[in-house]
């Protein structure tokens, strides 16, 4: 290797590098960062190498670092002369043959392409690849890169980290050369100061000021240290930076050494980064051989020695004083400051420590000047920051964004939001020292100050996205467990405080916490934060403080209801399915009982958990499917349809009466207490059933002539035949529930009457009022509301319906109305203002409706209903919208395009939501929630502001679904009984079953069995049930698919 000692040898190396980067033969480069290698890039590289060799091709094959989108690995970039550089993604070894075929024929395999790069700004230099391939998006046109600005990652994934000439080709070491020729260190420090470059390790201290201090310090020896001890869970920015561009780091440090007067630098890299260590070691060697490091650099007389030390993996060694102690060979424990490292650091000499990323910013600032640097980012925090975007987003990877970019850009625009069917809940920034920011605050610009205000920190740049499957209590516990095990043990608050904090959090996640723990945890967090010796302890409570601040509800759920909604805290749930079920049905049990061919026991298990199993078996929103662990293998177990099968088999098999007797065996003796239930919908029926089972005398008041509520009057016959509902109601009658029909509470009987007549009252009147919409034309003849429409039909009343019907809305009521209207012979279009995936209706229903012939128009906001001559409807006009920014629910807000869309129709059905009868609520004198027009109840007992008055269902939650409603009824019964009887009798109600608690030796490999729909044209003709249940064999097969998550260690 020739030493570079003057401009001509410098330029010669630069030219040599360009020949490798843009060889006349074309170039293939494989992304071989740790992320790429983990996804098979090594095999891919060898396959390419063998292929090129055996075919006698002349492509230049290179290894490069990671280009950023980790979820698209392995990445390969290919370049043919005159064409743009094309980034290929998810390339597998089996693609190699076709790839080489294409390339040797001068074709770019566009089907594998992610994006193209026509020219690249390496900041220190530009590379023009070529143009063409108009069908491919440019790199910054694909969502992952939109808005990204690559300063630190300027070379990553494009140049070979193992070849210094390629670094020189893109303008590398020019900044160093310039600094050495200018020989004006003060000016460089002034530039860094003017650029307001802040430390990228997390604290954000001005780098220029630190350098100035070191320059002014008088000593025989000064040191520079690069802190590459990146240890945050979920953060790997530094790893990829070093793996992709080691010389960028070296150049920054040599410049730093020259301007501060330090002649020795140390890279402290964590030993868990073997590839980074390897590439950096090679780079140091190469730079020394070329005279860019070591003695007499670039022949300008300056000498700088750089060595690499591998840290043993202690998180606390990211703390500068601990890092220095570690370098000195002592235990990695921090020491008090003062003295600061700038006065007395390594070996008691003045020392400056900067994070990896800070060093990467040096060369660009020197080359382009501070004014250029401050153009990017926010005024207080100029420049960019690299984040590792990981967790529950569709696209993960390394993202370099200007500081001050709002969080939602990261989560939704770049990351693409949560995977389908999930919603993002929060983002954790800064690792164990940071905090969790809830989705409501995603407008927050990401910079040092704003994150600190929210109780989090920027940290080194980890960004972990969490969705509804993440329990925030468990997240806090996880991070405290981490800092607890990484605490050095020197100071009391961190050593003992974190141990006590972990003990408290463990109590929360196992359901053993007390009310006092909530307060203790809060005050302990503050004490640890304010009293600890170093950054580790001072920031360790941040995850607890932020989750307590933003997700207090989850702590209270764990504490008071012993419930972990996310289903993460295993001690609080039987299994993920049970945890997700609003009725908390013991799903694994009934599956196992049916599997053992014990249909009657299975029915008893089901019906005791859920008194309307056949109805819910048909219409439940099945949240269990979303949580089933089987879906990690293929698809969720079809739990809903198995319990429908169990219930149908009993109702139709002639053994129902016998089973009713078995249920009644578990009824408690009469208590003499009287309870009134208002509303005979699913909520009221459930509550009445359990109260009657517990020996109370229950009377249900209902303003309709029959029981069932929405099940009877809103669900069309083809979804839930009335005969099924009637079968189920038989049990409720049999347990002794009395009904008073056609009774309007508030009119025929008042709440005060109920109060004097009964020991307890449960209100569940549901949401039967249509939401008022401001839309010109709603007064026209031919405009209907969904619920009255469905209700009238269920009562066999005549409803005049036109030939062309438009349904407005996207919920279940909209789809039910649409499918009903279709069955009445109309041509139906459903208009929804958002996208299809945002529709709240059950997806199976939406699809079934489409198969039957219902048309959809999405992104259309009703504007006005046009009247015809007869006072009827002529058409509806909608404002066409396009998707705008993400709102706090994580959905894109529809923005009008200005275009008006007209749908000719004669009937409009409004299904835009239902609300509670507010007049009733106001007259009741019960306390209401301030903003929402709902009843205010204690979330844990469901008791209203009036003693012994409880409420549940849609009345307190707003319009929801059957299983949620029934869950409230069940919960209310439990709490009402406890209040009435003064003891907790609930656990005694449940029959015991003996069943296998051994994990299945052979889980069925069969796929999910889906329900059987009648052919679309056939079912659209009438109101016969559209879906038939599972066959006995299918139901049995489904039970064999269950993985039995309810079985824990020790049970077998």
């Amino acid at each position, binding site marked *: 290797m020739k030493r570079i000692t003057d401009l001509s040898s410098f330029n010669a190396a630069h030219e040599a590098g360009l020949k490798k980067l843009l060889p006349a033969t074309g170039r293939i480069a494989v992304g071989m960062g740790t992320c790429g290698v983990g996804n098979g890039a090594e095999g891919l590289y060898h396959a390419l190498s063998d292929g090129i060799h055996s075919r006698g091709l002349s492509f230049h094959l290179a290894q490069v670092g990671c280009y950023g989108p980790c979820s698209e690995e392995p990445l390969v970039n290919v370049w043919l002369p005159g064409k743009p550089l094309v980034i290929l993604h998810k390339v597998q070894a089996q693609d190699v043959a076709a790839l080489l075929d294409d390339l040797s024929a001068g074709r770019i395999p566009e089907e594998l392409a992610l994006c193209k790069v026509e020219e690249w700004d390496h900041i220190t230099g530009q590379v023009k690849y070529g143009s063409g391939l108009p069908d491919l998006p440019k790199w910054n046109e694909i969502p992952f890169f939109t808005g990204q600005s690559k300063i630190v990652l300027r070379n990553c994934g494009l140049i070979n980290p193992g070849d210094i000439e390629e670094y020189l080709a893109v303008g590398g070491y020019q900044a160093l050369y310039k600094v050495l020729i200018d020989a004006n260190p003060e000016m460089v420090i002034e530039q860094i100061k003017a650029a307001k470059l802040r430390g990228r390790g997390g604290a954000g201290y001005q780098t220029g000021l630190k350098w100035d201090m070191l320059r002014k310090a008088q000593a025989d020896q000064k040191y520079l240290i690069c802190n590459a001890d990146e240890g945050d869970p979920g953060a790997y920015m530094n790893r990829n930076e070093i793996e992709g561009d080691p010389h960028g780091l070296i150049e920054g440090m040599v410049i730093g050494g020259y301007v501060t007067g330090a002649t020795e630098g140390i890279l402290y890299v964590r030993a868990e980064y073997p590839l980074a260590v390897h590439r950096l070691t090679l780079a140091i060697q190469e730079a020394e051989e070329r005279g860019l490091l070591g003695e007499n650099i670039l022949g300008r007389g300056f000498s700088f020695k750089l060595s690499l030390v591998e840290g043993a993996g202690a998180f606390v060694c990211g703390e500068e004083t601990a890092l220095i102690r570690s370098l000195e060979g002592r235990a990695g424990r921090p020491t008090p400051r*003062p003295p600061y490292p700038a006065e007395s650091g390594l070996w008691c000499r003045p020392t400056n420590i900067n994070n990896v990323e800070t060093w990467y910013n040096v060369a660009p600032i020197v080359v382009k000047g501070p004014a250029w640097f401050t153009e990017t980012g926010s005024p207080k925090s100029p420049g960019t920051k690299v984040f590792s975007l990981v967790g529950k987003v569709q696209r993960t990877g390394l993202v370099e964004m200007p500081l001050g970019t709002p969080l939602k850009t990261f989560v939704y625009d770049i990351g693409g939001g949560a995977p389908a069917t999930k919603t993002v809940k929060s983002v954790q920034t800064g690792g164990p020292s940071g905090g969790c920011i809830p989705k409501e605050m995603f407008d927050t610009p990401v910079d040092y100050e704003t994150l600190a205000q929210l109780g989090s920190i920027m940290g080194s740049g980890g960004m972990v996205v969490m969705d509804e499957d993440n329990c925030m209590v468990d997240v806090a516990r996880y991070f405290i467990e981490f800092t607890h095990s990484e605490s050095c*043990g020197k100071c009391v*608050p961190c050593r003992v405080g974190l141990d006590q904090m972990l003990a408290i959090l463990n109590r929360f996640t196992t359901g053993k916490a007390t009310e006092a723990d909530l307060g203790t945890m809060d005050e302990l967090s503050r004490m640890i934060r304010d009293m*600890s010796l170093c950054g580790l302890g001072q920031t360790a409570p941040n995850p607890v403080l932020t989750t307590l601040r933003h997700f207090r509800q989850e702590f209270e759920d764990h504490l008071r209801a012993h419930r972990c909604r996310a289903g993460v805290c295993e001690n609080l749930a039987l299994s993920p399915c049970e945890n997700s079920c609003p009725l908390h049905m013991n799903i694994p049990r009934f599956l196992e009982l049916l599997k053992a061919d014990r249909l009657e026991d299975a029915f008893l298990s089901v019906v005791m958990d859920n008194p309307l199993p056949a109805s819910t078996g048909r219409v439940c929103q099945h949240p269990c499917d979303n949580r089933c662990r089987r879906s990690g293998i293929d698809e969720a177990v079809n739990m809903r349809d198995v319990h429908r099968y169990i219930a149908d088999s009993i109702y139709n098999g002639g053994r129902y009466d016998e089973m009713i007797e078995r249920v009644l065996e578990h009824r408690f003796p009469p208590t003499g207490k009287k309870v009134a239930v208002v509303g005979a919908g699913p909520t009221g029926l459930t509550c009445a059933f359990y109260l009657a089972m517990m020996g109370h005398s229950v009377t249900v008041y209902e303003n309709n002539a029959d029981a069932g509520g929405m099940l009877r009057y809103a669900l069309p016959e083809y979804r839930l035949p009335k005969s099924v509902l009637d079968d189920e109601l038989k049990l409720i009658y049999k347990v002794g529930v009395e009904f008073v029909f056609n009774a309007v509470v508030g009119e025929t009987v008042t709440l005060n009457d109920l109060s004097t007549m009964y020991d307890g009252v449960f209100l569940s009147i549901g949401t039967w009022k249509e939401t008022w919409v401001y839309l010109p034309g709603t007064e026209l003849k031919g405009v209907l509301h969904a619920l009255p429409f469905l209700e009238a039909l269920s009562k066999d009343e005549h409803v005049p319906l036109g030939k062309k019907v438009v349904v407005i809305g996207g919920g279940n009521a909209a789809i039910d109305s649409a499918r009903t209207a279709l069955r009445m012979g109309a041509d139906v279009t459903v208009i929804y203002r958002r996208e299809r995936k945002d529709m709240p209706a059950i997806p199976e229903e939406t699809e079934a409706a489409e198969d039957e012939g219902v048309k959809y128009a999405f992104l259309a906001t009703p504007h006005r209903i046009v009247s015809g001559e007869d006072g009827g409807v002529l058409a509806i006009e909608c404002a066409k919208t396009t998707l705008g920014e993400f709102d706090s629910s994580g959905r894109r807000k529809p923005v009008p395009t200005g275009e008006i869309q007209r749908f000719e129709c004669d009937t409009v059905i409004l299904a835009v939501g239902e609300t509670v009868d507010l007049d009733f609520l106001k007259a009741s004198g019960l306390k209401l929630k301030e903003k929402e027009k709902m009843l205010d109840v204690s979330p844990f007992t469901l008791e209203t502001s009036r003693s012994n008055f409880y409420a549940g269902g849609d009345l307190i939650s707003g319009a929801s679904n059957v299983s949620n409603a029934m869950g409230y009824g069940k919960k209310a019964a439990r709490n009402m009984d406890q209040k009435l009887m003064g003891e907790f009798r609930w656990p005694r109600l449940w029959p015991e079953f003996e069943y296998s608690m051994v994990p299945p030796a052979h889980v069925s490999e069969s796929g999910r069995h889906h329900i059987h729909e009648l052919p679309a044209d056939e079912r659209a003709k009438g109101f016969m049930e559209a879906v038939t249940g599972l066959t006995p064999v299918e139901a049995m097969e489904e039970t064999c698919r269950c993985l039995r998550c309810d079985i824990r260690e020790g049970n077998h």
Partner: protein
Amino acid sequence: MDSKITIRIDGELVKTDRGASIFEAAKANGKHIPGLCNMKGLKPVGACRLCMVEVAGVNRLLPSCTTPAQEGMSVTIRSARLDAYRKQALELLLSERNHVCAVCVSNGHCELQSLATALGVTNVRYGYRYPKLGVDLSHPRYVLDHNRCILCTRCVRVCAEVEGAHVWDIAGRGIHSMLTCEMNRTWGASRNCTSCGKCVQVCPTGALAEKGFAVEEMIKRTASVERLTAVRGGGR
């Protein structure tokens, strides 16, 4: 340059030596800042965090043992927040190991105990950890009882800095930190221990004690070690 500087402690103007820590400045003026790890003559480490004080214009608490007093500084050594935090720190220490005063040789002469009394620690809000820890009886004259150790490292420092033997150090990390003798030898097998007993005398609790004393009988002669370091000219 004047060798004295003026600072304000809890509102009162006091004079102190230039270069003194806030802790020393307060002590020299008859003001007591609580502390368990700091000791005259030993290099301060700032480990117990009981001596944290508020300094006007600084938005975080500072350890008075390692923070030099500076001209014009205004220090608050007692406040509701500091009192609460100090109590919490003491409670954490009491919960950490098995501090059973009734059967301790240092009962009645223990710095941890007397500080807890002075600060009004009447109960411990945290769960006791009750670790199972050993007692090292292998030294002919002295005892090391890990159950009473608060990891203040006074013994470590006095042995390394004053006696020059460096018998003691801390092994492990976090809550598993333990005082260790040389490279994990028993005290009796130590090759460097001179049996000078300074570690025993500086130990604020009953963790290090002389053999032959029963409950309440072990009275430490901490002051004599302080005098010794003063004669040596060590420390500050």
